């Protein structure tokens, strides 16, 4: 295999969370988009093939982005998740969030009423050929989108959850959709947060953690 230009890697030279750190790695891949077969994915793969402990591994990336896997992984780590189901034809009553499981599309859709479900049912499943993960929404909820940089959120409300999400899913950069109900913060899905989308405060937060590498 030929050698190629190394994308932005981040060398971790400090323990991330002090003495109880549960994340051990040599380098962090800061591409932010680790989708299967993309440049960011291959950066992690090359690090793995070179025998380095990298954040994230290719398997970490898929665990986070493939929503039904993320649901199981979160639940096993005691992170609350919404009720969810894999369907091909029978959708639950609206409203719901729907995430396609197929090689062609990954964008989640918010289906607010039964008319929306009816009009999108075939499109989302490619006429029943592929599965969709649906998360029925409670009536009293809001949806928050978090931007996490190495397990840190600039929103104080999310400090604890941000760290937990990082410990479970291990993606240096992530965009996380949370369903907030009066009782709980429920993980809905994890999506790419590209490095070039980061603001100056988020970059400053990164600078404090380690050093850049070639």
């Amino acid at each position, binding site marked *: *295999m*030929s050698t*190629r*230009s190394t994308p932005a890697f981040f060398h971790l030279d400090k323990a991330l969370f002090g003495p*109880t750190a*549960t994340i*051990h790695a040599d380098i962090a891949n800061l591409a932010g988009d680790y989708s*299967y*077969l*993309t*440049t960011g*994915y*291959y950066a992690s*793969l090359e690090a793995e*093939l070179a025998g380095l*402990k990298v954040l994230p*591994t*290719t*398997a970490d990336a*898929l*665990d986070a982005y*493939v929503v*039904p*896997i993320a649901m*199981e*992984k979160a639940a*096993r780590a005691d992170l609350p998740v919404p009720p969810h*189901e*894999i*369907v*091909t*034809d*029978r959708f639950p009553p609206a409203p719901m969030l729907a995430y396609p*499981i*197929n*090689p062609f599309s*990954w964008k989640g859709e918010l289906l607010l009423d039964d008319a929306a479900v009816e009009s999108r049912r075939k499109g989302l499943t490619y006429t029943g*050929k*592929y*599965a969709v993960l649906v998360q029925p929404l409670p009536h009293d909820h809001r949806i928050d989108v978090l931007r996490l940089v190495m397990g840190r959120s600039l929103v104080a409300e999310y400090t604890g959850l941000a760290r937990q999400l990082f410990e479970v899913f291990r993606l240096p950069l992530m965009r996380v959709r949370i369903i907030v109900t009066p009782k709980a913060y429920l993980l809905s899905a994890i999506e790419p947060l590209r490095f070039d989308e980061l603001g100056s405060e988020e970059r400053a937060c990164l600078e404090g953690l380690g050093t850049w590498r070639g």
Partner: protein
Amino acid sequence: MARLAIFTERYTIRSSVELTALTNFRLAAFEQGHELDFLFKNELKYLRNYDGILIRALTDPLNTTYVVARTAEMLGKRVLDHSDAILICCDKVNMYARLAAKGVPIPETRSLEESDLSAVNAARLLEELGAPLVLKAPNSSFSAYVDKVATPDAFVKVGKRFLRRADRIVVQQYMPSDFDWRVITLAGTVLGVVRYEFAPNQWKLMDRTESGEWAKVVGIDVADASPKLLQVALAAANATGESLYGIDLKEIDGEFYVIEVNEQQHQRMVHKITAAVGRADGDRLDGVTVAALGLTFKAGTDDMRDSPALRILRKTQQRGATIRAYDPTVQGDLDPHRATQVRDFEIAATAVDAIEGADVVVVLTEWPEFAALDFTKVREAMAGDTIVDCRNLLDPAAVRASGLRYTGIGRPSS
């Protein structure tokens, strides 16, 4: 009796050949006293009701098949294919890199990203590897998105088309032949050998001639197949994870080159451990104590992440065995993460403590101190009489001289 499920899809059972194969499989399960259900993607909430799952549908990390494999693993179920194997084999960049790293013979292979795709680079590669070259999209299957190119212009044109599917393409030396070998392996054993004889003047299995002639599929008795063919195929299976594999090879002047590994292995270690205590494959291991020597993924590190040792031990434990493990780096007060990794095992302070009264000793990490053990003392301390050496670390003669039986990997057992 086990409760088994075959995960399958509509497009699979639509083929009469596939449906016959699946029903034969179900009959075989019934005859052995197992339950077997077919499971479809809208029924995945019932996955947890089964002990083992066989996937018989197109595997792709972005398809439901990967969700099935990964979820089954998290639930502690046995599953074929394993998610690692799907991840490696569905991406040819990954697959060829793993084969090359393990020294498995493959055609000369490079991978390119978009910024490398130019007429100048194409001309250089055609010079270096010879014309024509074979271009492959990393996620191609059934030989779609595989094309031969003979000129720099064609190279760039085809390369651009493939780069719409992924951010890399694979460039490979072309090996002409009238047939491919396919070797089917499971858990380090060859299950079958097939010769694919291409339709006249065609070079891919799924091509047919204008008159509609397809490739012929000819079954070969494993005993009649070239030992070298089987050896290369098993090396390829070993390099790419744990699964039921169909390995495609080219034969050129008596040498064999792996061109594809289709996933569909640690399991073989569990088989060896099971056999070492005199039980039949698939039997429960209740009442068996396994002394595990080594937990880290290699010697000289304290890293247990992705360690094959842990996976083999967990699988063995799932069968009912008690695991008593010793590793020089897994001692004293462990940090919470490491403690979690080994919480289901008894941790011994010395190798001798781990071995005391054990039914079988399994070497899982190549720590030099294990090779230096006094095997006569090991023989006296353990209740059983077999050492399974998953790392081929020990000197089989030294082990046998003490009256122990030795099982290694790809070495004769005694």
